[in-house]
């Protein structure tokens, strides 16, 4: 651990962290505690009174087919965004991490989707896939000899298209981090493997991939947060949870129950469940990082 560089300044560190701690307390930790508390209550229809109901909000959630449907859709969506997104990004980063001319150009030309907001990704993809009139349904219909691609009526197709749009937007971010991670893998390791006669494919899985695991697990966490929350705008623009409730992800259901139906207790219980899921993934991520850090020391 570090030393105290400025002994004798007892109060200064507290003053330095005070603004951050104040914001965290007032807007993050406080409301989070309050949210757990509210998850044990229901409010009367006009919000005049709240009634303690114990775990009833949670029981109601887990016995609601709509909620379970939303859980399944969210996991499908997140699995797509994470698995497909990270695989493609890693492959592209690996291509970029070679000694070829024009790397600087390719780097810029492949990472910029990071600057596209989920909402904008949503509106562009919605226009490309617009049923009957959009470009992609046109191409699909030409190639397949008349198949009409309509995601306003086909739930699974809708989920696939919103997931593809969300993945596209996130590629730039993932490539930036994978590339940074790849550049930290020492060349000597890979050269040694080459001398030992390992194929590039084998060298990648035996050396590069394990050494990347801190980056990969970090990206896993960030992409999960993204797939769970930040895609709200994309869903709101593209499908509003439809058709039916095929693309009603947890965050969208939470918004509807909390802010459209004004069911605060019910929505607070949903908040807590989401927190629980994040915590589990975060703990797994932390374990991967610490284990690997020791392994390579």
């Amino acid at each position, binding site marked *: 651990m570090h*030393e*105290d560089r*400025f002994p004798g*300044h*007892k109060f*200064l*560190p507290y003053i330095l*962290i005070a*603004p*951050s*701690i104040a914001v*965290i307390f*007032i*807007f993050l930790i406080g*409301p989070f505690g*309050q*949210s757990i508390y*509210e998850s044990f209550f229901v409010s009367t229809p006009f919000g005049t009174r709240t009634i303690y109901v114990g775990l009833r909000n949670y029981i109601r959630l887990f016995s609601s087919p709509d909620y379970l449907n939303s859980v399944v859709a969210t996991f499908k969506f997140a699995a797509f965004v994470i698995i497909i997104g990270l695989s493609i990004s890693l492959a592209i980063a690996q*291509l970029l991490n070679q000694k*070829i*001319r*024009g790397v600087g150009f*390719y780097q810029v*030309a*492949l990472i*910029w*989707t990071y*600057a*596209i*907001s989920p*909402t*904008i990704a949503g*509106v*562009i*993809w919605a*226009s*490309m896939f617009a049923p009957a009139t959009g*470009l992609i349904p*046109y191409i699909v219909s030409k190639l397949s000899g008349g198949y009409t691609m309509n995601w306003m009526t086909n739930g699974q197709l809708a989920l696939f298209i919103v997931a593809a749009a969300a993945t*596209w937007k996130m*590629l730039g971010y993932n490539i*930036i981090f994978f590339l*940074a991670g790849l550049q*930290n893998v020492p060349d000597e390791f890979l050269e040694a493997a080459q001398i030992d006669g390992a194929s590039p494919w084998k060298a990648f899985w035996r050396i590069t991939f394990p050494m990347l695991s*801190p980056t990969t697990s970090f990206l896993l966490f960030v992409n999960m*947060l993204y797939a*769970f929350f930040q895609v*709200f*705008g994309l869903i*709101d*623009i593209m499908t509003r949870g439809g058709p039916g409730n095929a693309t009603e992800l947890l*965050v969208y259901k939470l*918004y509807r129950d*909390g*802010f459209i139906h004004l069911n*605060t207790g019910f929505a*607070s219980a949903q*908040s807590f469940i989401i*927190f629980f899921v994040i915590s589990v993934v*975060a703990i797994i991520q932390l374990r991967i990082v610490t284990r690997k850090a020791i392994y390579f020391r």
Partner: protein
Amino acid sequence: MTRKNRHEILIHAILIILVIVLAFPVFFALVTSTLSFQESYEYPPKLIPGNQFMNNFKDAWERVNIGRLFFNSTLISVVVAIVKTILALLAAFAYTHFKFRGQGLLFSMCMITQMLPLPVRIIPTYQLIATFNWINSYYALMVPFFASTTGLLLFRQFYMTVPADLPDAARVDGASPMRYFLQILVPISKTNIAALFVIEFIFMWSQYLWPLIVTTTGEMRVIQIGIKMLLASEQIAPEWNVIMAGTVIAMLPPLIVLLVLRKSFVQGIAMQTTK
């Protein structure tokens, strides 16, 4: 042609295809934004730009007051990115250069915020903003975002690598901690500051859910919601040409920030992933 050359050409070919495929949706949006309404519904869909951009842009501007929304988004993104950077610099300085009681606990508290994104505390945060009478104000759009774990980690990682001689020499010379911070530490953090600015600017520019619930009037909305309003204002068929004109404008600022600060941004990320 040598084998190595052929290999390189193949990589170039793959990369160029990837660049084109990734850029295609934005290219398509750009083309659509230049077409007239009729052209945008022609079959087969057009992939050659027209000359109607200014008309579409004017329509979008009038329909949802894009100028005002653009201003709001720019204001909140710049202010939040700057305030977050300052708070993160101060906190990272405290955690790496001082020893104080409760340090570990207070640091964990900053870290735990990563686990508390808006949706896990959205209703009480909204109620709190309502108690403050901040609904439909810039305060509501900005203040809850001021704490930054990303920034704290970014600067902390860097400050832990700063040689001890630097603060020690400053102290021996009689410089106060704040003087050392402002005249030495902040200037050598330039790359990280730029990287954080990019991250936070893009993060704020993309906000949608929070502005949607805490703003209630047209002039307090942000540009992301403007896009939604353009989409929703249609009666029969979406006027994609007008919507895309708004969209093109809405995607420019974060792209410009990323491109201008690209070098520092990539370096900052690289420093972060080095263990």
